[in-house]
């Protein structure tokens, strides 16, 4: 076998430690102690469950559910900053569908999310495959790979802005001095190119998350399966496609799900790099909603733009959860 090792699988560790644990438990638990009233209640599964879930539910209700319903109310009102709002039904949404900038933002959000996720998945998978080996600098390499994800987004985005700068771009400097281009490339100045630059930065930032999570998935794949496949004559690509991939599909789906949701709702990256320009060609839902709500002070309209995301995301998450549940046989 090649010189790499799979990380010990926790389940095995757990199973192996049953005996000592059991001994510890026996030692730690006095027998047949009568339970208090509260203790009795906590023995019941449902009571315990709700007790455990209570803090989570409180926080999420107060800080998400309530503001969320407030947000829905905003979107069906004509609220502007400083004045009370009145119910206006779906008018905000109708106005949005009529707004060319909104439609552009709609298109951009989807393109941005799907293309970026595709690349993050591909490069992340590649990185995970590479990192799934045992080599001397493994730890440092893995930690360094995570750096783009660790650094505060707003700051790394500022760095990229400087790297793309129309006058001072380091990329242009390299390309010009290498004689590959004669005129500066306007990374953020051309509609399509700007979109591409945004996707590039998003992929750079998000790939490590995919890599590390997929790496975890790869390590649960039993090496014996690969041995068997090899013996049967499969080459590396076939082994990947038919053995590895199906086994890590669940984790792939989950990480894609989380990432897609975060990318749909992205704000910082686009806001810092282009603010939606040039000529509104890079607006996504988040940035456009922000501009309308904050600078035009139309809170109701802004909320309606933000909310457009929601039904779609709901469908996506329901589909994926259903798929995961089905395939994991839970």
């Amino acid at each position, binding site marked *: 076998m090649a010189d790499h090792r799979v990380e010990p699988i926790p389940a095995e560790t757990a199973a192996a430690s049953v005996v000592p644990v059991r001994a510890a438990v026996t030692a730690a638990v006095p027998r047949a102690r009568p339970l208090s009233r509260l203790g009795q209640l906590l023995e019941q599964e449902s009571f315990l469950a709700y007790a455990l879930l209570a803090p989570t539910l409180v926080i999420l209700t107060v800080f998400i559910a309530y503001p969320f319903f407030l947000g829905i109310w905003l979107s069906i009102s004509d609220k502007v*900053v*400083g004045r009370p709002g009145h119910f206006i039904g779906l008018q905000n949404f109708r106005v949005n569908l009529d707004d060319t900038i909104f439609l552009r933002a709609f298109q951009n959000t989807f393109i941005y999310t799907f293309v970026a996720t595709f690349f993050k998945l591909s490069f992340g998978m590649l990185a995970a495959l590479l990192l799934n080996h045992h080599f001397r600098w493994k730890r440092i390499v893995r930690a360094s790979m995570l750096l783009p994800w660790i650094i505060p987004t707003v700051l790394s985005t500022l760095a990229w802005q400087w790297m793309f700068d*129309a006058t001072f771009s380091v990329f242009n400097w390299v390309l010009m001095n290498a004689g590959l281009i004669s005129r500066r490339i306007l990374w953020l*100045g051309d509609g399509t190119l700007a979109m591409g630059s945004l996707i590039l930065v998003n992929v750079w930032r998000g790939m490590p998350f995919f890599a590390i999570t997929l790496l975890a998935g790869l390590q649960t794949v039993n090496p014996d399966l690969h041995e068997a496949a090899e013996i049967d004559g499969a080459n590396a690509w076939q082994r990947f496609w038919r053995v590895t991939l199906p086994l890590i599909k669940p984790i792939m789906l989950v990480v894609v799900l989380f990432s897609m949701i975060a990318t749909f709702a992205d704000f910082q990256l686009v806001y810092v790099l282009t603010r939606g*320009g*040039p000529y*509104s060609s890079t607006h996504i839902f988040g940035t456009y909603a922000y501009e309308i709500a904050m600078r*035009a002070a139309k809170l109701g309209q802004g909320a309606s733009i933000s909310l457009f995301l929601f039904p779609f995301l709901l469908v996506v998450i329901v589909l994926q959860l259903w798929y995961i549940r089905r395939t994991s046989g839970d």
Partner: protein
Amino acid sequence: MARDERDGQKGMDRRAFLKVAGAATGAGFAGGIPGIVAAQKPPSFPKGTKLHILEWVSFVPPSDQEFKRLAEEFGKLAGVDVTVEFINMNDLNPRIASAIETKAGPDIIMMISNWPHLYADALVDVDDLAEEIAKRDGGYYDLSKAISFVGKSWKAVPYCIVTPTWAYREDWFKEVGATKFPETWDELRKVGTQLKKQGRPLGQAFGHSLGDPNGWAYPVTWGFGGMEVDKNQKVIINSKETVEALKFTVAFWKDALDEGGLAWDDTNNNRAYLAGTISATINGASIYFVAKRQFPDIAKVTNHGHMPKGPAGRFYLTFPQEHAIMKYSKNQQVAKEFIRWFMDRSQYDKWFVINDGYVNGPARYWENHPMWQRDAKLVPFKESPQFARWPGFAGPPDRKASEALVKYIMVDMYAQAIKGMKPEDAAKWAESELKKVYA
């Protein structure tokens, strides 16, 4: 601390303060602000009164420090705890929105451009203050009034006007035969064409930022005779004149402008100019300010010129700033006293001078300030407010004008034309967008 004690300690300061104030405001004004202050006895606010002021981060950093210093001075004189908070222009709106909605936050907020119209319902009427100052200082510019007077009352006290002009390299312009800054757009285009051939194009932003990009879009449109709406807010952008302006801009872009401009925000032209990659640009005095301190060689050869004249005249888009007092504030009286004290000549003077030409006063009095004489290069700044108009012209600079501004309709109209859209189509697009806003 007993009032007497406080008076005793501050007595000297207060008397000195009143003397200077009295001298500066002249004898003619009966009582005057110092009179009012004197009559009130030192503004007596209960101990522990706080005043929270929100300002933008100035493009001229020392002026922020001066503002803070003056605010602290006021705090000592009035026995009030003053905090000044500075936020970047682009990040002010969410702070303001959240303060208004939650009814808590700074007592005084600096407004930029026509924000008083946008937030009018949450602002305190300040007619007495505003008119007092107007009378004393020779009247406000039309621009200042249009911006701060909403409906039937003054909703903010005009503070200053930031005016952009053309900063240009005198030496390079001389080399191509322009001994002074061109008077008309056609002349500028000729000069620009020659400069661009030499690798020294002019620079203009067409990206999404509130400052510089609008500094072209609106004035050029007005200069050729176009405008967004008429005085009854009927959309008239799609006109022969606008199309002329668009055609001119596209040609100007090809012949004379740095083509990175589509990606530029408010900061790119400063950097490009100071790095020597462009020969001229529309900007406030911040370029010159930084040059004098960090790039003296460039400062020596930099001068300022007026916006060229188009067939319909010469126009500027300027950024007036004003101070508004928030309705939710529990310290409205203190706030009024602060603004009154600050706008008093002896205080405002200090702040005005440190800005070194970056700002104009809101009223005519400041046109004659000796500072303008000190450096002849600053003269165009002094004169620009008279040519200034506001977004939403010829209608009022109200909420709808803000929406158009925020959606960058004017800027995008030009940007799209530059990218290749036919000028007629670009104007039509702007018309349909504006119609939705002014619906």
